[in-house]
């Protein structure tokens, strides 16, 4: 059961009458690491939320290769500020499995193995809301990956992290991508975009200005806004 490709046709998001993003039309192929970049307020988060289904379309459509209810089971989302359930780390990791009806002992065993894989082995019995910022984000990532999603959305996962935590997250992401998980991530760290991106979606004022191969985007951006953004100018 393959849920990709994902197609957005003139998808638009409004909040209390104000337009957040759109209309956006694009297609996400089955493989790859897509980086959504653009200045603050460009609608990067809204675009990810639209794709994932956290944000309702006020116009247009978001369509997967399978019915939406099936597609929801195979995707996960990592938020910019980690949402920690008031539980122990092992219980946080087991929770997505428990939601899918996995019996408690098996869910805990998988959670333990998963924690070790992500370097959280020593924290299994720690209270999740009391972890450090980097640990919380690693836990979020592990929690998203434990269900083996086909596609993973990440909304500026390293925005509040130090260099070391950022490097750890990036290593995990590259590894996950190499194993075939489709990644869609937003960032406004251009260095990170250059390190990780295979293709790029450039957003500005809620509209997708460019969607292209990463190498081509960074060497020869086709819109003046993208050119200005890459060269470090303020884009209004």
């Amino acid at each position: 059961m393959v849920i990709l490709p994902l197609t957005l046709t003139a998808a638009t998001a409004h909040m209390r009458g104000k337009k957040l993003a759109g209309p956006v039309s694009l297609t996400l192929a089955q493989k790859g690491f897509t980086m959504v970049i653009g200045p603050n307020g460009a609608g990067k988060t809204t675009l990810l939320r639209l794709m994932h289904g956290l944000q309702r379309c006020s116009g247009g459509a978001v369509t997967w290769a399978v019915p939406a209810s099936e597609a929801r089971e195979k995707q996960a989302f990592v938020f910019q500020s980690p949402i920690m359930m008031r539980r122990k780390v092992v219980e946080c990791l087991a929770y997505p499995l428990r939601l899918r009806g996995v019996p408690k002992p098996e869910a805990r065993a998988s959670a333990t193995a998963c924690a070790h894989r992500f370097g959280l082995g020593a924290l299994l019995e720690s209270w999740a809301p009391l972890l450090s910022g980097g640990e919380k984000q690693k836990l979020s990532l592990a929690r998203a990956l434990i269900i083996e999603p086909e596609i993973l959305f990440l909304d500026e996962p390293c925005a509040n992290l130090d260099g070391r935590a950022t490097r750890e997250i990036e290593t995990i992401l590259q590894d996950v991508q190499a194993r075939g998980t489709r990644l869609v991530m937003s960032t406004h760290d251009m260095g990170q975009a250059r390190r990780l991106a295979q293709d790029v979606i450039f957003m500005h004022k809620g509209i997708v200005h460019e969607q292209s191969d990463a190498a081509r985007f960074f060497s020869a951006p086709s819109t003046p806004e993208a050119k200005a953004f890459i060269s470090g100018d303020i884009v209004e």
Partner: protein
Amino acid sequence: MSDTGNGFWEAWRLILSLDPDLYEIVFLSLQVTVSAVIIASVIGLPMGAWLAVNRFRFRRYVIAVLNALMGLPPVVVGLFVYMMLSRAGPLGGFGLLFSPSAMIIAQVIIITPLIASISHQTIRDLWAEYHDLLISMNATRAQRMKALLWDGKRALLTATLAGFGRAIGEVGAIMIVGGNIEHITRVLTTAIALETGKGNFAFAMGLGLILITLAVIVNLLIHIIGKTERASTW
């Protein structure tokens, strides 16, 4: 003033004398109140969670009514339950009037809105925090309510304890539906009202001190068992 002081010694004398009548009254007070709190929690906590995670047309009005019901006058509840349970009432056939069961029914009606309303406020805040995560994880409505009730359990103890506090000190309703019958429906609050009426102020004061102590002990025990107010576990 001397009655207050005498009440203090009277309380000790009562406790130390192992007066069986006193222990009977204390035990019945606890039995009625704890039963009422358990029943009201089973109804009120899920109701609070349900109101927090569901959006429907008249939600705001339901919550406003629920908040208003927190201030339900016990005497009126007592009268209502009395009419329901009296021989001529719709539930008269069960013969429950002037029994501890009738007192429990009245207290459940009084404290369920309180527990539901406080738990709704608690869970609403937690839901605001969890909303995106649980939606993203595709949790069903029942799973969302379960997670919120479970993760908010320590804060929800406060709702339950507020219900306990209201019920253990309640006198108007249980006086009407229980009748303050010695050895059957006499509890601490109704006994205090009776003794005060008879002019036995010291004795009434002694019972009052025991009632307050009882409420404090139950609260402390729950807090210790629930491990609330500890930094490491919230």
